[in-house]
C-alpha cells in the first residue's frame, strides 16, 4: 500500500503547515488512520470541501496514488491565496459562487451536502462536452471578463473556477516529489 503516511509526512514537511488563517477542516476524512487537519487561507471551509471532492474526481486514487493523497486541495488554496493576482482572485471568488449556484441547480443541494455522485454529475455536465464546445470554453476564458457581454459572464465565472482547480490539480500533482520520483 502506499506509502500514504510517507506522502503525508513529506507534504507536511514541504508545506510546514505554518500558515496564517483560521479555517480548519478535515480533508482526509475518508481514511481515519491518516486523519489530519489543514488550514485554508483563500477558500472557506465549505468551499474546501468542494475542492477536495473535485480534486478526488480529477485525479482519483486508484492502484496508484491520487491527488487527495497529496493534499492537492490545500495546494490549490495556497496557490489561489498567494499566486493569483487581485483580479484573478476576484474572478476565482465569483467562480466559486457560480459553481455553488450551478451545483444547487443540478443536484438540489448545497455543495457542502453533496456526495461523490453529485460532484460527478457536475463534472459530467460541464466537462463532458464536445471538442468544439471545449474550444469555445477556452476562447471564452481568453476574454477580458469586464468587457464580456452580460449573458456570457456566468459561464466565464464557472469555467474560471473549474479550469483553475483542474490546472492547479495537475500542477500540484505532477510536480510533487512523489509523482516525479515515480515517473523517473
Amino acid at each position, binding site marked *: 500500500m502506499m506509502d500514504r503516511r510517507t506522502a503525508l509526512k513529506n507534504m507536511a514537511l514541504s508545506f510546514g503547515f505554518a500558515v496564517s488563517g483560521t479555517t480548519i477542516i478535515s480533508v482526509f476524512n475518508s481514511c481515519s488512520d491518516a486523519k489530519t487537519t489543514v488550514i485554508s487561507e483563500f477558500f472557506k471551509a465549505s468551499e474546501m470541501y468542494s475542492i477536495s471532492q473535485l480534486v478526488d474526481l480529477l485525479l482519483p486514487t486508484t492502484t496508484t496514488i491520487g491527488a487527495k493523497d497529496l493534499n492537492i486541495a490545500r495546494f490549490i488554496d495556497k496557490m489561489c491565496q*498567494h*499566486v493569483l493576482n487581485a483580479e484573478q482572485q476576484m474572478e476565482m471568488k465569483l467562480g466559486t459562487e457560480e459553481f455553488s449556484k450551478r451545483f444547487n441547480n443540478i443536484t438540489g443541494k448545497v455543495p457542502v451536502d453533496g456526495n461523490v455522485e453529485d460532484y460527478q454529475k457536475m463534472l459530467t455536465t460541464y466537462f463532458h462536452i464536445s471538442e468544439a464546445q471545449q474550444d469555445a470554453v477556452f476562447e471564452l476564458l481568453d476574454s477580458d471578463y469586464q468587457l464580456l457581454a452580460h449573458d456570457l459572464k456566468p459561464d466565464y465565472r464557472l469555467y474560471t473556477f473549474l*479550469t483553475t482547480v483542474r490546472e492547479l490539480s*495537475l*500542477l500540484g500533482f505532477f510536480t510533487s516529489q512523489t*509523482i516525479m520520483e515515480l515517473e523517473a
Partner: protein
Amino acid sequence: MNKAYDAIVIGTGISGGWAAKELCEHGLKTLVLERGRMVNHGDYPTATKDIWDFEFRGKPSAAATANQETQSRTGFVTQETTAHWFVNDLEHPYNETKRFDWIRGYHVGGRSLTWGRQALRMSDLDFEANKLEGIAVDWPIRYKDIAPWYTKVEQFIGVCGENLGLPHLPDSHLSPAMPLNEVEKDFKDQISKHYKNRHLTMGRFANLTGDAQHTGRANCAYRNRCMRGCPLGAYFSSNSSTLPAAERTGNMTLRPYSIVSEIVYDDISKKATGVKIIDAQTHETLEFSAKIIFCCASTVGTTSILLQSKSERFPNGLGNDSGELGHNLMDHHFRVGATGTTTKFKQVPYINNRPASFHIPRFRNLKDGEPQSNFLRGYSFQGSASRTDWRRAIKELSYGEALKDKLLKPGPWRIGMTGFGECLPYHENKMTLDDTKKDQWGLPTVTFDAEFKKNELEMRKDMQQEAIKMLKLAGFEDVKGFDTALYLGHAIHEMGTARMGHDPKTSVLNKFNQIHAVSNVYVTDGSCMTSSGNQNPSLTYMALTARAVDHAVKLLKQNLL
C-alpha cells in the same frame, strides 16, 4: 582616502569579468566596481532545489510579481527559481515612451549568471553589411581583427558544438557537441534533403564538455538549471571563471554596492582621471582614480554613465561629440517561429535535461544563397524537440483515472523553434535620461523610445513562414506558427548606444573601443555594437573586451595613455 589604481572596470557582467581578468593578468592593479550585491561562485540559493521544493512550484507569487512587474512581462525571468537574479522594478524605475523590457541583474556577475550561453561568432557578412547597404555607419573592424580574440575567449570559457565550415558562421574552438535527439536528427536529415544552404546543428554553448581543463570548473552534468547558477561552474559566468582568475593574480580589488555616477574628465590632459561613485547602501560619495577606465556596465548602464558625465568640454555626455550617444538602440527580435508534433519515435527513451538547443544558422540574403528577400539581413533559428509532459493536458477538460494514467507517461514528441532576427540600427531608436525623475541615489532615470520597424516586421513574416514550411516538409504534424512578443529588450540583447565607427563625427568609439576623444576610456559592452547581427552577442562582447585590454596595455607600456 581614495586610492589610485592602474585601471578601473565598471561592471562585473560578461564584459566586465573579462576586462578584470585580462587587466589583472597583465599586472595592472585593477578596481572592479559593481553596483549591486556580492555573489561569490557557489552562492546560488536555488541551484540544488527540485521543483517541489519551491513553495509555489516555480511560479512567482503575486507579491513578488508586484516588485518585478515590468520584468515579469518576459514570462520567465521572474520565476521563483531565478527571480533573485533580477532587480526590483520599484527600486529601479525607468520610463517608457515606447515599451522596452529592460531586464537587469544588479549583483556581482550580472547577467553572465543568467545568459543563454549560446556563443556564436559574427562574420564579415555582418561586419560589412552596413557599408555595403549604406546603413548607419561602417564597422571599423572586420572578422580578421576579432578572429584571434574569439579563439582566445572560446578556449577560456569552453564552448561545445559543431563546426560547419560556413563563411557566415565561422568555425570556433569547440569541445564535443551535446547530442541531438532522434527527432532532431531526423529533422536535420530532412532539412539537408530539401535545402542546399540550410543546416541544422547543435548550438554552440558555453557549457563544458570534453577533456580540456578549466580551473575550478567541471564538465556539464546536464542538470539544465543553468539560470540558477551552476555549483559545478559547468557553464561560463564571471563568477565561476573570469573573476576567480582575476582574483588569483592578487591585483583585483572588487567593490560591490558601488554605483558609478560619473567618469571624471580632465580637459588639460584630455583624459579621464577616475570615477565618482555612490555607495548604494550608505549613499556616501567616493572618488577613485586610474590611468584607464573600462566601461562594462551593460549597454544601458554604460550609456547612462557617459550621458551623466558632463563637463565643459562634453556638455552632452562624455565622448558625445557625434550626438550618437544613446541612439541606435537595437535588440534582436524573436519569439516568432513554429511548433509541431510527431507520433514517430515513441519508443525512444528520452530525458529532457539537455541545457542546449539546436541551431539553424542564417540562410537568407547570403551572397551565394537564394534569391534576395524583401528585407535586409537575416535570422537564425534555435529550438529543440522533447517529449511533452503533463502540461499537454492543460487546455483540455478531461479528468479521471484515464487522464492520470495518460499523464504519468511521456506524451508525443513536440518540436519548436524560434527565430533570432537582426535589427537594423536606427538613429531615432534611443534611450535618454530624464533629469526630472531621479532614482533613490539622485541619479536621472532612463527613458526608452524605440521600436522595431518595417525591415524587422517583414523579416518576421518570413521567419514564421519558413519555420512552418520546414517543419511541414520534415513531416511534422499539427504544425502551427506563432508570433508573440515584439518589444525591444525582450531578447535581453540590447546594444548599440555608443557605437564603434571610423569617424568621430558619426560614432562614439574607435576601432579599439576607445572613446574617440578620450583615449583612456574604453567601452566594450553591448553599447559598442555598430550593427546587431542575428547571433547571440555575448561572445563578441568578450572578444572585443579582450582585444581592447590588449590594446590598452600596449599603449600603457608605451606611455601613450
